[in-house]
């Protein structure tokens, strides 16, 4: 469980996060949504410890991140998995080496044990015939699967995903969303996903936080977002003609 209390962050005097409070439960896909520049990425990076908040607190299972010493922070980071927007696979390593990297770095497992665990997660994310391929030799969807496999290989308690389906075709994007949701439920991980993809919002939004200009303006789930009359949400969610038509259809029902 991640709990955020009154989180504030500024850059060069410009307030990007304006006192955000929320919580993310384990076993749920928690989404941060909002327009570009709304503070989503800053919020995700602050949760990851890449940015230090100006004020406010972030609790990981009741432990205030700010009170941890550097060694404890590093230990906590080993319990986090991250899926980057562009996958961020190490291009000097093949698929197996990429996935096994966190195990090599943070555990004392033997090479055979690492190989077994890597194969286990490769099977879990359904990567077929890709073990010895380099990241440049596989498709964008497969790269995302490798990134997910790398993020979960060390059994993380927290999984962060920055726009995990950006750049993917709609069908692959849905498969990736479903994979993240299945893994979240299966391993009871606290998953936080940064997205502005409406398919993801409707498909896997078990808990959604909507940010606008650095403020949390709405919180709910994928069913509630369809029914809300909150103007900011309506403006953001129903920005396309197709979605506007769907909303009219639902309203007239």
């Amino acid at each position, binding site marked *: 469980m991640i709990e955020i209390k009154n989180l504030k962050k500024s850059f060069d005097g410009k307030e990007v996060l304006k006192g955000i409070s929320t919580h993310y439960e384990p076993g749920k896909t928690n989404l941060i949504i909002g327009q570009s520049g709304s503070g989503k990425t800053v919020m995700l990076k602050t949760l990851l410890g*890449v940015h230090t908040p100006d004020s406010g607190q972030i609790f990981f299972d009741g432990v205030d991140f700010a009170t941890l010493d550097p060694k404890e922070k*590093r230990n906590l980071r080993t319990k986090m998995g*991250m899926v*980057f927007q*562009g996958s*961020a696979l190490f*291009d000097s390593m093949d698929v197996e080496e990429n996935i096994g990297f966190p195990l090599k*770095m*943070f555990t004392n497992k033997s090479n055979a044990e690492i190989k077994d665990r890597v194969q286990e997660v490769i099977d879990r994310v359904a990567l077929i015939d890709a073990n010895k391929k380099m990241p440049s030799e596989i498709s964008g969807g497969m790269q995302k699967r490798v990134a997910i496999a790398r993020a979960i290989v060390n059994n993380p308690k927290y999984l962060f995903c920055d726009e995990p389906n950006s750049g993917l075709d709609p069908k692959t994007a849905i498969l990736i969303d479903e994979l993240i949701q299945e893994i979240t439920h299966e391993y009871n991980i606290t998953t936080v996903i940064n997205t502005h993809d409406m398919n993801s919002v409707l498909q896997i939004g078990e808990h959604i936080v909507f940010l606008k200009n650095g403020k949390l303006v709405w919180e709910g789930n994928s069913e509630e977002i369809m029914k809300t009359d909150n103007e900011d949400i309506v403006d953001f969610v129903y920005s396309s003609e197709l979605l506007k038509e769907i909303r009219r259809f639902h309203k007239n029902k």
Partner: protein
Amino acid sequence: MIAEIFRRPTKWRITKGLIFKEIDELIIGSLGIVAFLSFFIGAVVTIQTALNLNNPIIPKYLIGFTARQSIILEFSPTFVSIIMAGRMGSYITSSIGTMRVTEQIDALEVMGINPLNYLVFPKLIASLTYPFVIAISMFVGVFGGYVAGSLGGYLAPEEFIKGLQDDFHPFHITYAFIKTFVFGLVLATVPSYYGYYMEGGALEVGKAATKSFVWTSITIIICNYLLTQILLA
């Protein structure tokens, strides 16, 4: 940056592998081009010297002496290092810069790994073997001079050998290797700095590599002047 390179070290088992990989890429991988350049520059230095020392009262063995001094004191340590700023430096800046723009460095940070230690420390240690490249350059350069001098008929092989041995100061070799050691550290750190701290996309990687080459060369030239002043003056 330098202090951060030595903080929070990566597991030795992994660092060891990375050091060998960097030695292979940066040092062993440079030997071919260094040997090729050194052989022909050594040959040209000898021919040029021979053509300009055409006064009959100047002994021929001075051609060997001049070739040795030029190659050992300046060509191999300094000019090969500037060439290496292009080869090694561009490789280091562009590989680290690409990792920066594709979020691979962010991925290391998020995992709790010190990216500077993971990426730069092995290069720094590999650069300690850089004097080996220059030793090869010196040997091949002098050999190139010997071949060009004797095969071109500019002087007899014995005269070239006499020139190589004439007025030989072992400290010149020490001086050359002290310079080489410093240049090796410059070649590992300056390009790493430009790669690690770059911002932007693919275009900026190219710009960073160019900038890195310019500043690595400038740093080498200034260090060369200072070390020569301190060690030889």
